[in-house]
């Protein structure tokens, strides 16, 4: 219509012009906002720049996986927050997946009780706002846990208290050799499995790869302990008195209650959605597939493992990727319960101390974008690997 009017008949031009105009319009919007922000900031005496990242942060953080104290830079504080976000996301994704699969399969169980419990779990936990669940686990757990002097003891080497879960600290000698041996074990397992696959495909021989792999994973590192001077000792947490009624534990590693509550809330919440994906996936596999598998003599476990699951995974993976992304982004609610993630540490304290709102929020958004895209890329690769291969 409009093209005819302007007499643009060339198909290439017709396709290109609207797109070019869109890009130009978008660019001008962005440039307009940027210049406007710049003028406004200039008028109010605010400068723009990233030099602050090298300045001394001068605030401390409760929980850090790398060495950090207030004398480090804001850039380092950013890294601490980022690692903490990744940590809680990885823990959350791990447990959410396990629980999701178990609950999803349970919902299809023939056992009435199991199926009903799974159904109630899903309906309750997916319908309550996540932030309330986080508060619930944090404050309920805080109120329920004992003070350090009455901590719940696990064989006197680990203690669960209101101030955290104190576990023994691993003290390694020659850790590098141990790490290399684990890598070597994984490489060996890779070759064993590919050899086993070849044997099965060419000669129909079944090699019990699971047991062999497990043995390799234990045996190779064990050798380093026996012959290559690797050793491991533990530093146990010990009760320490700070004042007549104030106690804490010294030594060992403290897993802070904020991390426990957040990981618990995130995985309980996300597991409900994953469970529904799993249920949908299993129900999506044709009945004939199971009957065919049964007719060639596979037992119930084999049917699930060899026939149903590989096909169900194709349905399960894409929506589950969304849940992984959601979980990672939801972990930003951490700030409410003082878990030092990137939002609390960087977009919170660092933003306040420096006043660099635009710079810090841009960096934080870019970080979440990068995290999400990385998860997407990985899951897309996994999805492709699991997809039907036409032969």
């Amino acid at each position, binding site marked *: 219509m*409009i*093209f005819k009017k302007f007499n643009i008949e060339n198909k290439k031009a*017709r*396709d290109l012009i*609207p*797109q070019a*105009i*869109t890009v130009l*319009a*978008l660019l*001008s*919007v962005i440039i*307009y*906002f940027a210049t*406007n922000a710049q*003028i*406004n*900031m*200039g*008028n*109010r*005496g*605010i400068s723009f720049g990233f030099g602050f990242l090298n300045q001394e942060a*001068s*605030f*401390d*953080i*409760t929980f850090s996986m790398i060495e950090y104290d*207030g004398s480090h830079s804001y850039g380092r504080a950013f890294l601490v927050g980022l690692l903490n976000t990744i940590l809680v996301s990885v823990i959350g994704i791990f447990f959410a997946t396990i629980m999701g699969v178990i609950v999803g399969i349970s919902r299809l169980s023939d056992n009435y009780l199991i199926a009903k419990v799974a159904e109630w779990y899903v309906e309750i936990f997916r319908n309550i706002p996540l932030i309330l669940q986080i508060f619930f686990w944090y*404050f309920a757990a*805080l*109120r329920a846990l004992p*003070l350090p002097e009455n901590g719940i003891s696990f064989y006197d080497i680990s203690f669960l208290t*209101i*101030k955290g879960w104190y576990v023994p600290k691993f003290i390694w000698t020659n850790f590098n050799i141990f790490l290399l041996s684990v890598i070597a074990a994984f490489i060996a397992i890779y070759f064993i499995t590919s050899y086993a696959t070849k044997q099965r495909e060419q000669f129909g021989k079944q090699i019990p790869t699971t047991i062999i792999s497990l043995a390799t994973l234990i045996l190779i590192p064990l050798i380093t302990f026996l012959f290559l001077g690797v050793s491991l000792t533990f530093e146990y947490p010990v009760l*320490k008195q*700070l*004042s*007549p*009624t*104030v106690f*804490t534990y*010294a030594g060992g590693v403290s897993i802070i*209650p*904020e991390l426990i509550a957040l990981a618990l809330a995130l995985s309980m919440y996300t597991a409900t959605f994953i469970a529904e994906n799993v249920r949908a996936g299993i129900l999506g596999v044709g009945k004939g597939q199971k009957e065919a598998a049964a007719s060639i003599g596979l037992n119930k476990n084999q049917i699930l493992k060899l026939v149903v699951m590989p096909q169900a995974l194709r349905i399960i993976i894409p929506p589950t990727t969304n849940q992984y992304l959601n979980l990672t982004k939801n972990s930003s609610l951490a*700030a*409410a*319960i*003082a878990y*030092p993630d990137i939002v*609390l540490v960087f977009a*919170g*304290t660092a*933003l*306040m*101390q*420096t*006043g660099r*709102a635009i710079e810090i929020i841009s960096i934080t958004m870019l970080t979440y974008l990068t995290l999400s895209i990385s998860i997407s890329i990985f899951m897309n690769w996994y999805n492709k690997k699991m997809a039907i291969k036409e032969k």
Partner: protein
Amino acid sequence: MIKSIKTWILVGFASLLLVACGQGGGGAGSKKSKTLDNTKKAGFVKCGVSQGLPGFSNADEAGNWTGIDVDVCRAVAAAVLGDADKVKYTPLSAKERFTALTSGEIDVLARNTTWTLSRDADIGLTFVGVNFYDGQGFMVRKNSGINSVNDFRNGISACTNTGTTTELNMRDFFNSKNISYEPIAFEKADEVVAAYDAGRCDTYTTDKSGLAAQRTKMSNPDEHKVLPETISKEPLGPVVRQGDAVWEDIVRWSLNTMIEAEEYGVNSSNASSLKDSENPAIKRLVGSEGELGAAFGLDNDWSLRIIEQVGNYGESYKKHIADTGILPNRGPNQLWTKGGILYVPPAR
């Protein structure tokens, strides 16, 4: 074809956005006060307050805000609009407060905010004065056996708010004492109180006025005490955006008027009867001498309205902080003539 229609819709939407944005934006900083004009046009003062700190800015069940910080905004409203009640309050977290001010969402920030060099100079803000001299302290449980900061030992856990000077002072303090500590920083004060109350941390640190106010929220306030030491200077005061000198003056002198009124014994009940006072300083305060309001484009009764509708600083302190049992003793927040450090430049 469908694809190209979509594209055209997008283009249309983008240009619409452009037009819409063209009307907003623009900078402050002309010689006349844009903020004053906007405030008069809107009919209310846009005031940023805390999310609930008894004595400073706290809302009751009916949503009425009270406190000495709130009174600063009420004073500005009385001076500018003639009615102290014409204030729109925006509760802000420590993190949000400066952005809300620099972006123009609020025009006065009266939210127990510490005046520091970097805040004043670096991020487009101007502090106009001090309405409460405070200092950071520590709260502990009475039965803890901790009677002074010298009783703190390695491994103590301390709860506080994020995004405050408190976090920095705490580190300076523990470092100078060579004590290792566990800092637990929450976004909102209510969560700090809940976590400390549950026993997650051994001590709660913030401004002493804040400690006194939050103690009233504990499940059993009598079980807690504030340690005697003060580890920092925390001059709390109202803040405005940089670049509007007239508005800055209005807020500054609204606060100063309240303090000066107390100094000269002018209060909400006697102000109008003092129009014929023999003291020229009092006459200037109640607007019967001089043309002081003209300097910021206000009438001459602006200061009288502040005193009549809001009261002087002493009345405000008594009503919100002393009578509520938060800090009955005025300490440094007493007039300079009575042994405190409240001292404002003369209004003349």
